[in-house]
Each structure stands twice: as structure tokens, then as C-alpha cells.
């Protein structure tokens, strides 16, 4: 019975094999970048923080960008007294390593030392527990889960095409539901990260004005390390929202995540 079906399977395997071949194998970060990272760690331990910062940034520019590097960079900024950049780095690290307790702890430590003491606009713990998929998993993890689920759906569909067994149908239904949930979460997270709507004040003191440009009236002043929400960007200015107040700020004063 199976002999009749072998043909399409051969085609499929051939296609998969071909795809693996055609798609260029992107190399992992070069040894060079990793060496730079290791070097930066040593410099950090030697308490030369500004040198460490430049080395971490060099590793990043060479294409080596794991969450741990952002975390180390954040530490280096923190030790160097650059609270805003430290918080920005920790936030980037958190995107990649959302369950890493060191990252979360250091982010809280850095936040507690900001001047403005504005509580960042984050949902309460209960909601974060409920939406654990969004808050406890990184975008990459969600994307991989989505892909695996999608593959599972098609695999089950393929099996169902030939063997119409009812348990497979219910399997497909369940898989599709889980796929939709995780896929939606991944999509929302993807959108939020791509929209770059969060930023951190990196200058010591930043003036928020009524409109884009220096000619507008100053509304209020915010300080290093405060996290803000970006509503829109125009030229060199960004419309921000912080603690229910809105205004325009110079992009040089902020680091957009």
C-alpha cells in the first residue's frame, strides 16, 4: 500500500534537501567578534569601563549580539556612571533574555537610581503572569515555537491526506489553536519591537518642548535614565509620552530601543 505513495515523499525530501543547499549558510559571528567580547570582559574586570564599553560596541558592530553582551554592556555603562545607557542596554538584554534574573535585577537596580523616579509604564505582575507567553519568552523563542507548530500542522495535514484517521483531525485542531495563540503573541511582540516605541533618556538632563524644534516652549525637564514612550518622530525630534505628559524631545538626548 505504501509503495503507491513513495513518489511524493521523494519529491518532498528532495525539495527540503535542495532548500538547505540553496539558502546560503549564514555564518555565526566571527571568531574576531567573540575575541573582542572576551577581551572586553577582561578589560571590564580590570575596571577600565570606558574601554570595555568601546570593545563591547565593537563586538556588536562585528555581528556578535547575544543577550549576554547587552547585559555586560549595561554593567559597563552602569559602572561608568552612565545610567541611561545602562538601562537601555539592560532593556535590550531583557528582550533577548526575558527570564534571566540577573538582567531583571540589574535593570531594577539601575531604575531605582534614576532621578525622576518615574515608574515605567509596565503592566501589573498578575497580567504579566497571565500573558506569560508575551513577557516570559523572547521574540526568537516565540518565532521558533510558531514555526515548529506550523510545521506540525502541515505535517499532520499531510498525514491526514493519506490516512484519514479521526484522531489526527483533533490533533490538527489542537495544534492550530496553539499555533494561533503563539503566532499572535509572536506577531504582537514582533510589531512592538520593530516599532521601536521605547526609549531612555541618556543625557544628564533633557528639555521637553511643546513642538519639534528648539523654538518651541519648554514644558518640563526629565533626567538621565527615565524611560519614555515614543509616539512619533519628525526630523531630529521625537514626540514622547512620559507619566501621562506629552512633548517633543531632541533625539540626541534619547536612546531608542
Amino acid at each position, binding site marked *: 500500500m505504501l509503495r503507491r505513495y513513495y*513518489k*511524493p515523499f521523494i*519529491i*518532498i525530501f528532495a*525539495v*527540503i534537501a535542495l*532548500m*538547505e543547499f540553496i*539558502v*546560503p*549558510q*549564514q555564518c*555565526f*559571528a566571527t571568531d574576531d567578534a567573540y575575541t573582542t567580547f*572576551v577581551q572586553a*570582559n577582561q578589560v*571590564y*574586570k580590570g575596571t577600565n569601563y570606558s574601554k570595555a564599553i568601546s570593545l563591547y560596541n565593537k563586538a556588536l558592530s562585528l*555581528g*556578535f*549580539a*547575544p*543577550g*549576554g*553582551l547587552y*547585559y*555586560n554592556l549595561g*554593567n*559597563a555603562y*552602569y*559602572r561608568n556612571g552612565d545610567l541611561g545607557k545602562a538601562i537601555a542596554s539592560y532593556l535590550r538584554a531583557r528582550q*533577548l*533574555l526575558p527570564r*534571566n534574573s*540577573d538582567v531583571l*535585577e*540589574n535593570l531594577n*537596580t*539601575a531604575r*531605582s*537610581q534614576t532621578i525622576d523616579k518615574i515608574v515605567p509604564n509596565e503592566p501589573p505582575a498578575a497580567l504579566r503572569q497571565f500573558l506569560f507567553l508575551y513577557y516570559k519568552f523572547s*521574540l*526568537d523563542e516565540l*518565532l*521558533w515555537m510558531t*514555526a*515548529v507548530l*506550523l*510545521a*506540525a*500542522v*502541515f*505535517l499532520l*495535514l*499531510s498525514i491526514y*491526506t*493519506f490516512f484519514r484517521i479521526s484522531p489526527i483531525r483533533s490533533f490538527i485542531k489542537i495544534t492550530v489553536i496553539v499555533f494561533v495563540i503563539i503566532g499572535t503573541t509572536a506577531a504582537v511582540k514582533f510589531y512592538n519591537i520593530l516599532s521601536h516605541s521605547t526609549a531612555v533618556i541618556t543625557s544628564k538632563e533633557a528639555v521637553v518642548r511643546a513642538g519639534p524644534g528648539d523654538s518651541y516652549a519648554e514644558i518640563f525637564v526629565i533626567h538621565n535614565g527615565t524611560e519614555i514612550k515614543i509616539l512619533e518622530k519628525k526630523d531630529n525630534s521625537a514626540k514622547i509620552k512620559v507619566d501621562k505628559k506629552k512633548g517633543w524631545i531632541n533625539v540626541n538626548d534619547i536612546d531608542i530601543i
Partner: protein
Amino acid sequence: MLKLLKYTLLTSFLLFASVSQAQVKVLASINKRVISLNENVNFQVTVEGSQKTLMPKFEKLTGFSILQGPSISRQMSFVNGHQSKSVTYSYILKPNAVGSQTIGPVTVKVGSQKYRTKPIQVEIVKGNKNNSKNDPAGTADLSTDQNIFLNLQVDKSEVYANGQISLALTLYYKDVDITDVTQPDFKLKGFFVYDDGGRPVQQRVMIDNMIYQSVRFQKLLIPLSAGKHKIGPFSIDVTIRVPIRGKRRRDPFDDNFFGGSIFGDFFGNYKTKIVSVKSNPVTVNIRKLPLTGKPDGFSGAVGNFSLNVDVSPKTVQVGEPVTLTVKLSGKGNIDNASIDMPKDTRGFRIYEPETTRDSRVSEGQLVGKRTYKQAMVPTSTNAVLIPAINFSYFNPETKKYVSLKRGPFKLKVKPMPEDSKLRITELTSIRNNQGSIRILNQDIFPITTSVDSLGSSKRAINNPAFYTLVIAPAAAWIILAAFARRRNRMLNDTALYRRTNASKKVKARLKKARSALKNDNNKLFYLELSDALTHFIADQIHIPAAQVTAITLSKILTGYGIPQETVEELKNTLEYCDFGRFAPGEFSKVEAEKRLSASERLITELEKVIS
């Protein structure tokens, strides 16, 4: 299961050895009590404890003549440093007359002393006792109760509930080659069955002047309820090796027919047989424990126990623990015995006792030990008295209840020194502050250097494997679904199926026609060529192949836009084939070759036009 055979010899040696050297014993034994005139009886005189003996002398031996013997075998062994010796004189005696005859007594001089054995009665009957002609395998002997039997014994026929009964199930056998014995199943309702520990006991015993081998299984029973209980009967399956007697058959057919003879040759003409041996049942009477004199707090322990209570240290400070150790030991079902430990004693904080329990069967008696260890912490200097420990049991020997009491125990409790009081208050003040951690210094956690906690540097959206995972299964499904659809259409749409397979079929037919031509098989050539064309046309336009003939051809093919000359040529070819088949004339190979290649060309043309 037991490998009895192995042990039989060994144990017989050991048992003879166990007789002490100083004690000399002379025993006479026979192997059969009832024999027929043409049988012999084996008579043995065994002297245990010495080897300095003279030949035994028959005081009386009427009705028998000595056929053979005496053959002398001396045995000597050392067990645990004790030397034991024995001599056995074996005679084979032949009866001379029917009736009850007496062997012996026999006198043996051992050293300077003379020993006399008891006379042994043997019954001699006429003719064959076992009709051995009808029983070539000689199995009749084995089924008799004399050579193998099972005996069930209990040590007491009357016992109190919760008391102990020792049970012995003994298998006796002689002149039987036992290779295997199953363990009897000792499941009994209304009893706790304890293993006696150790393996079954093997012995040589003399019953009725005959020596038997015996295997004894021992169990200890604790009756749970009063009343008359029947124990057994038990049965044991015994595997016996039986020599195949009589003439050895040489006929191979016979061998196979009766089976086993091939193995018999290998194993010296033996076959095994499983015999189920059943014991006698035994009834025991279980008595209720008397109600009179039953002490309070009697927990059901029956036996003979002793109670030991120890308190240490006797002098303590407030807050320091005192250990109360209670040891209960003795004969009887200690599993049923329990002691009430002090639970709610004023002035003490009491912890759950640690208990250990150990019970085993020793020398046919259940003995056990139970220990309680309880920590008691005096909370004030007023706590000076640990209450008494009570335990009561029923002694089945004296038929009386016994109550044991140890204590109460006096303690000397000292007040706590001042500085330890301080420590406690300090601790409590610290405890009260729980819930808020005083932050000494705020600092960040160190950088990460381990590769494991770094996380991946590669993003999924840059990873080809990710896209493969998304696309490949989807593509696979599309291909599979398309294939499945096509297959379904083929199954449901015959016209399509015929059309799709028409060219494949026609090729096969033309090939056949070509090979027919090669082999000069004219008839087949015409047939195949004609079939190739008609079937191809029929398949293409989905009509029965029989409808396609040279006459109907032009009618059928109208409306498909086929050029007139092609139709004509087809018609000619079909006619040529029909002529060839039905009006055989001169066969031209060249002409046939031409027609064949023309047909191939025609088919390609038709395929193009029709589809």
C-alpha cells in the same frame, strides 16, 4: 525449587556425622516391608559412632538365605571439629517361603561391647507383587504410598488466638530418585504465616525399620480468630527420575512412537515423571482469650514479653531534651503489641517517638523486639515526673494476663542560665523583624562570561533553518495534496484514467508486436498491432475497444479534427491486420515492418490531435 539430588548424599553423611563419637548406636533396616517370593530384600546393619566392629551375626534368619553380602562401607567425617564414624553392613536376602518372616535380631560386637538390634518383620507374598510385565516403566512402585508420602504436623492442637503454632510439612521418600520438589503453597485463611527462615531441613529418618530421606518445610502460624480451623491438606509436586525397565527397544519406529527413548539413551534410559503428593489435613482448635482478668489497655499481645524503660539524662536544664527509651522484647507476635507512649504530659514538650521493629522466627518461635525513642523537653522546672509506662500481655503457658509497669521516673530539672535566656529574646526580636530586609548596599550583579548564559547571537529572522521550517512542510503538504487530488480524480474519472494511461499501454502493445515479428509469429503480430491501434483510439475517446473497427473508424473519429489521410491510413492498417489474421496469405516481413513504424507515427499524430 530444590535440587534435592545434590544434597541427598551430603546430608546423609552429615547426619551420620552428627552422632557423637562416644555414643554407639546399632540400627537394622530393610528397604521393603512387603515383598514377593521372587524379589529380594535389602537388609542393612549400621553401626554409628565406632568403626571397631566385628561382623554382625544373625541370631535368627529363618525363611531367608543370604544372596549377597555383607558388603561393608565405612564412613568418616569431621563436622565442626567433631569426628564421626560409621560402618554399614549390607545384605541382600532372598526369601524362601511365603508368610510373615523375621530377620534378626543381629548381634554386633563393637569394641568390647555387644549390641543387639531389634528383629524386623517382613511379609512375603506369593507371585508378583507388582505386575511388572504390564508395567515396563516400573512406575507402579512409585504411586504406592510407602515409598513417597507427605506428612503434616503441628506442635499444638489447641492454641489461643494470636498465639503461635509451628507447622511442619515433611516429605518422606525412599528408593526414589527425586530431582525436583516444588515449594508448597502455604496460603492459609485466618492465619498469619511466617517463614521459618532458612531452607527446608533434610534428614534421614527411620520409620518402621526403614530408612527414609525427608525434607521438612517449616512455617509459623499465628491464628487470627477463634474456632476450629482445618489446616491443609497441602500437596507438593515431586519430579522423579524413573529408570525404564524391561527390554530396550531397537526398532526406531517404536522409539519414536513411544517418545523419549532417544533421551533415554542419553541419560541412561531414564524418564522423568511428576507425582503430586498430598498430605493429611490437621485440625486445630483456636481458643478465645479469656475475658476475666483482661487488663485495661491490653493490645492483643500473646506470648512472653519483657519491658525495659530507660530515661537519660536524669538531670537536665529547662529546654534540654530527655530521651525516654522503651524496649519491649520477647516471644510472641510483637507486631500486635503496642505501647502507649506519653503524649500530653504537663510541663514537657513532646516529640513523635522514633520506633524500630524487628521480628523473626527463631527455633520455631516468633521472637521480636520493639523500641520506642521519645524526646521530651521540659519547659519549666516544675516538670519532674515522667509518667509510668504500662504494657500487658497474655501468657498462654500460665493462661494468665500479665501487666508490666515501669516508672514513673523522677527528673531533676535545673533552671536555665541567664545568658541563654538573653539569647532567646534576641532571637525572637530578630524573628519579629522578619519580612523586611535591611538593604546594606545596592549594587549590580557581575557580568556574564559563560557561553551558556550568553544567549544566541543569531536571530530567527536571519536563520535559513527558520524559513525552511516554515516553508518546507507547507510545500510538502501542497505537493501531497495535489498528488492525492490527482489520484482521486483518476479513481473517479475513468475517461481521464484511460486517456492518461493510453500511451503507456500502446507502447507496451507495439513492443509486443515487434517481438512477435522478430519471432516470426505472424498471428500474434497482427493481433497485437490491431489491438494497439483499436485500444488506443478507444482509450482516447472513451468508448469500448470492440466498437473500433475498420468500418466504424471514420464515423467514430469525425469531429476530432483528424486529417482525412490519417484516418484512411489507420483504416488501411486495421484492414491489413484483419486480412492477415482471418485470410492468411503471403507474409511479407518488409511490409509488416513498414506498417509497424507507420502505426507508431500515426499514434503520435493522433495523440497530438485528440488531447
